[in-house]
């Protein structure tokens, strides 16, 4: 097998090479070309508009919103998901028996479709839904959960955190299990408090699994679409208008293929750069604990 065999190698990688050419390289070039045109998906007449689409995009309030909304989601969703999955991991890790059973149960939300959770949340939070009825009878308040900018963003973040936390907990628990009990015993002998033990021993020692969870969660917050599409359509007043939502609206509702491609290019650049910077920051935090 160590003998070099180019034909065999090519035959086995052919599915990947063909797929990547047709569904990655070709669309990539096409979208760069489209971004400089004013094509509207139907018209046979295609004009070169130079940087026009990019200039329009940079002036659009919807794009400004998309840029900031992504970071707002990041700041709400990532901590929420990490805390929730940490609670689950610590709880399950502390059980002497039936760990697997509980982990399976906590993983179930991951199997739900964003469409279904949106349906549930919309019904549950509606004016006559169980939550608002209770709040009305008890505290005499009505909250328009999906109609106010801050609550809408929080609701969507919470839904996705609920969905992902069981999966992230699986990753975190493998980190918890890699820590030797003797370290805890030694720390307790030295009189360390539970809080000190958690922040000075547990968190630094499970850094690799925290890193994985953080990177996954950051990736998720740059790709939010389904929940926003179902529940708010990007509103109210662009408060939940993610890049995905904006690209979908421009390409498939307003039928501006050229403009949508320009936005997609901007979105990709912003996403790629943001994730690289965040990754570096998380790695720096790891260096601080002595991980490389």
């Amino acid at each position: 097998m160590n003998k070099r065999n180019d034909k065999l190698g090519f035959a086995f990688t052919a599915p990947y090479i063909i797929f990547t050419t047709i569904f990655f390289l070709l669309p990539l070039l096409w979208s760069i070309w489209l971004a400089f045109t004013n094509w509207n998906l139907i018209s046979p007449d295609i004009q070169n508009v130079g940087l026009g689409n990019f200039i329009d995009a940079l002036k659009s309030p919807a794009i400004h919103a998309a840029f900031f909304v992504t970071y707002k989601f990041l700041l709400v969703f990532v901590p929420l998901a990490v805390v929730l999955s940490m609670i689950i991991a610590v709880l399950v890790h502390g059980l002497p028996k039936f760990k697997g059973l509980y982990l399976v149960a906590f993983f179930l939300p991951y199997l739900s479709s964003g469409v279904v959770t949106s349906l549930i949340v919309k019904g549950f939070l509606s004016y006559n839904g169980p939550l608002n009825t209770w709040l009305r009878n008890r505290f005499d308040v009505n909250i328009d959960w999906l109609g106010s900018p801050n609550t809408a963003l929080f609701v969507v973040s919470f839904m996705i955190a609920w969905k992902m936390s069981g999966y992230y907990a699986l990753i975190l628990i493998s980190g918890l299990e890699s820590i030797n009990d003797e370290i805890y015993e030694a720390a307790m002998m030295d009189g360390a408090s539970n809080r000190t033990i958690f922040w000075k021993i547990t968190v630094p020692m499970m850094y690799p699994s925290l890193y994985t969870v953080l990177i996954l969660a950051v990736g998720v917050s740059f790709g939010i679409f389904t929940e926003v599409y179902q529940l708010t359509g990007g509103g109210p007043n662009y408060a939940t208008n993610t890049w995905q939502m904006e690209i979908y609206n421009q390409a498939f509702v307003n039928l501006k293929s050229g403009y949508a491609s320009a936005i997609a290019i901007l979105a990709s650049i912003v996403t790629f750069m943001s994730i690289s910077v965040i990754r570096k920051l998380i790695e720096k935090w790891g260096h601080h604990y002595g991980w490389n």
Partner: protein
Amino acid sequence: MVGIKKNKPRTWRYVLTTCVMLLMIYPFIYLVLNSFAAWDQVDKKLIPTHYTLRSWQWLFSNNATAAPAPWLHAFFNTFVVTTLSVALMMLFAIIVAFALSKLNFRGKKFTNNFLLFQMFFPGIILLVPQFLLVTKVGLIDSYAGLILPTAVSLWAIFMYTNFFKSIPDTLIESATLDGATPLQILFKIIVPMSKSITTVIFLFLYTERWTTLLWDMIVSKSDGTVTLNVLISQMFGPYGTYPGPMYAASVLLTLPLIVLFLLFSKNFQQGMQYTLK
């Protein structure tokens, strides 16, 4: 905080964990109960008090649409599209990963690096041109249009490549000396050794493909190809007055994934343990 407090009674841990678990599972309970709730109680109570089969009967009759039993057909579409997509993703991932981990050929390093680059590339840029491509070649509103652009999973190739690398080369060398062809080695020796990782990859791919919205939504244009997820999404607005049947349809969409996951949960746990190492 972790692994300590051994003197505290353990029952409290179970009570606490079970409470948190019930809270996490509650949306599913709410979903199922509302699919059986009397129509004037849907979305009104935490736990409905009157039950009926009306929502389910509505779902399986051809209410409100021209096509016969549109919901069952949409379920069938979801099943066909997901199963075929995932089968192709798994097959291609196994073959390509074998080359990238165990074969020696020109361009191997480049292919590996390009794969990694592609994995971290923001995929949203491809949405519009992929849609145009599928439209141009006449695959819009067809199974092929739904399946082919999702027939290769970079993540699955990556996972299999890493796993195959951990299989000792000596095993392959001795099989080669015995006259086995590369395909035989792959499918008779390596694949059977990869059971638990295959379960993990399969379950993640199946769940993700089953619940895909964006791509399926823009490609399927008629009752013939619409998937259940897309149909529920479309009926969300105009049929808002029939929330009961929407809950029944949602149960129909979610249940197969839960059954599948529970069936494979033992292999899944083993596989996760490997992938997280």
